[in-house]
Each structure stands twice: as C-alpha cells, then as structure tokens.
C-alpha cells in the first residue's frame, strides 16, 4: 500500500509519505533510498519508519541515509534467505541480522515454521542475542523449542523471562539454560520420527 502510495506520490504529487521529514537534505536522500527499495521489490514503510526514527534521534541526514542503505541490504538478504517474506518478517529479520543473528538461522526458522509467520520467533531470537546470548546458542535453543512444538506464547515468555533475568543480574547463558529447562518439562518429548511418543488411548 505504502509502496503504491510512494509510486503515485513520486510522479503525481499525491500525499507525501515523507511528510513528517522536515530537513530537505534528508528528504532527498530518503527518497533516493525509497526508490531503490521499490526497484528491489522491498516495502518502503520500514524505511520511512527508519527515517523518522533517525530524525527523532536527531541524527545527521547522511547518517540516516547510511542507515537506510543498511536496512535495505538487510531486508534484501532476509528476503533471499526466506524466499517469500511478509513485511513484519522482513523487518524482524533485518533487526535480527543487525543484532548478530546469522542469515542461515532465519532460513532454519522458516523451515521449522513454514506455514506461519516467523516474525515472532525471530523477535525472540533477537531479544536473546541482544541480552547477550551467543547467537549460535540462541539459534539452537529456539530451533530446538520449535522442533518440540513450543507454542508462540511459550517462546514469547522465554524471551521475556530471559530478558528480565538478565536485568536482575543473571548471566545470559545461565538464564537461558534455566528457562529452557523449565520450558522443556511442559513440552512434548520428541519430534516425529526421531523419538517415540506414547500413543494416545
């Protein structure tokens, strides 16, 4: 929708998606990046948001333009790794890459949850890594939980708990270890094919 809006605006003088951007230099730079994103088939709303975020934080226009280029590159990589991706997935994936999550980890999440949006597990992964969990370890634990059919609610709770534990002074790895163990007790023991699950009566 916003992409369409942008396309219309740029040629026809329709409502300006960068209306909130006051600095003329920033407007020019941002428009260039938005056009580049449209050509790559990427949504522009995340770039507009990033422009406004940079403006709010009073960052200089060239720095905001660099941030837009970086965001475009990250979304492009996410799109490549996920195949088709929704806008929330692209944004969550780009944030995850910025936090240090590997692109292959995103592809692994997609394989684990092919039928629904993976924006949520990506967000949990980002949160774990932001709190200091080593990215490979965080990826392995999240994948393991998905493999054991952890619900989205349980994943969110995990991210929430680890985050709080770390704020209270606990080490990130220790917090993750404890919380994952706690969660495992309530999960089914096995992915199909690798472990026998008792047949239901």
């Amino acid at each position: 929708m916003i992409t369409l809006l942008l396309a219309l605006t740029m040629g026809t003088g329709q409502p300006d998606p960068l209306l909130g951007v006051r600095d003329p230099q920033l407007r020019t730079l941002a428009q260039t990046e938005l056009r580049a994103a449209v050509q790559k088939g990427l949504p522009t709303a995340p770039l507009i948001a990033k422009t406004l975020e940079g403006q709010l934080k009073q960052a200089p226009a060239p720095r905001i333009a660099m941030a837009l280029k970086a965001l475009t590159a990250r979304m492009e990589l996410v799109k490549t790794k996920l195949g088709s991706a929704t806008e929330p997935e692209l944004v969550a994936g780009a944030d995850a890459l910025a936090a240090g999550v590997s692109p292959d980890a995103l592809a692994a999440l997609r394989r684990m949850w092919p039928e629904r949006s993976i924006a949520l597990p990506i967000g949990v992964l980002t949160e774990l890594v932001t709190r200091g969990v080593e990215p490979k370890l965080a990826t392995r634990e999240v994948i393991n939980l998905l493999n054991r059919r952890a619900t989205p609610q349980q994943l969110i709770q995990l991210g929430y708990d680890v985050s709080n534990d770390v704020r209270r002074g606990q080490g990130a790895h220790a917090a993750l270890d404890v919380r994952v163990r706690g969660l495992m007790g309530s999960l089914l023991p096995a992915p199909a094919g690798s472990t026998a699950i008792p047949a239901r009566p």
Partner: protein
Amino acid sequence: MRDEVMHDPVLRPLVETARQLPDRNPALVARILAATATPVRRPWWQRWTVPAFAMATLAATIMVWRREAATPMVPAVATSGTDSVQPTRVAPASPVAPVASGDGVLPATVPVRFAFDAAAATTVHLVGDFNGWDATATPMQRAGDGRWVSDVALAPGRHVYAFVVDGTQWLTDPHAPRASDDDFGQGGSVLMVRVP
C-alpha cells in the same frame, strides 16, 4: 590400564566425575513405561503374560502424559509500574480475552497500557516500531499526578518503543530492557508482548 587411570593425578578427577550417576528421572521412567505398554509380539515358545501391573502402569503413565502434554500456556502479563514515580509502562489490568490456545493460535493484538511520569511536560507521545516511529501518531493523555498514559493494541512478540516529550526529547523507559541501535547509537526500550 583401567586401574592405571585411577593412579593418574590428572585423569583421575575426570574419571571420578564422569562416573557420577545423575539423579533418577521419574518423568522419563513414566514416559518409557507408557511408550512400552503395548505388548510385544514374542516367539511362540515364550509364555505370553501381561500382568495386571502392566495395565495399572499404563493407566498411571497415560495420566502423567496427558497432564504434561496439556500444560497450560504461560500466565498473563503481570508487569506493574503503578507504584513508580519513574517513567514506566504498565500492562492492562484486564486484557481482552485472546483466542490463544495450546495449539499456538495467537490473537492479532493484545491491549497494552503505557504510562509515563513527566509532570512538567506539555506533550508526550509514544513512539515505536508499531507506529512507524511517527512522533505525531500516538499522543499520550494526562492521567493525574504527572502521569501520562496511552492504550494501544500490539501484536504479540517483541517491540521497541520510546517516549517523546514536548516534541523533541527522546526518552527510554528506565524499567524496561534496552534495545541495541547500531544505526543511531540510541536504543529504545524493549517490550515483549505476551498473551494472557
């Protein structure tokens, strides 16, 4: 050679530690017995018996199994900052009942109340990834005692947010974890929106 290792001052502690047995695991035993409760086809010369014990074990372990598999989802958000004089975010007192269930179906949004203490402020706006960091999109309302509040509906998951005071001043929530920000060097606050 096996004895030799116990005379090795370097390896001996390792072997002794490695020989320590873990605690017994009753839940695992219950799962094993439940999974093996079905009779095995045995050679004709072996006597076929399924003692009453087997049936009792089956019944008990299935109960254990069901309880484990049906463990309810996590409790509702319980963060509270109402007793704080610092800028803070509080969860809704009575969130809308979600469609969520054990199969992982999530509600599209969950209501969340943000609160921020800024008695001297003329305006306060909530900004975040949920409103495109638009400093005009979500004005907060005065709620007395210098507190500003805003109720928004957020998708479950991770969100980054901040407060903008008087149109220019960017402030994070001191009671929330910080997000990193390599782009501009000023991370916002993180909110993990859970489902009640």
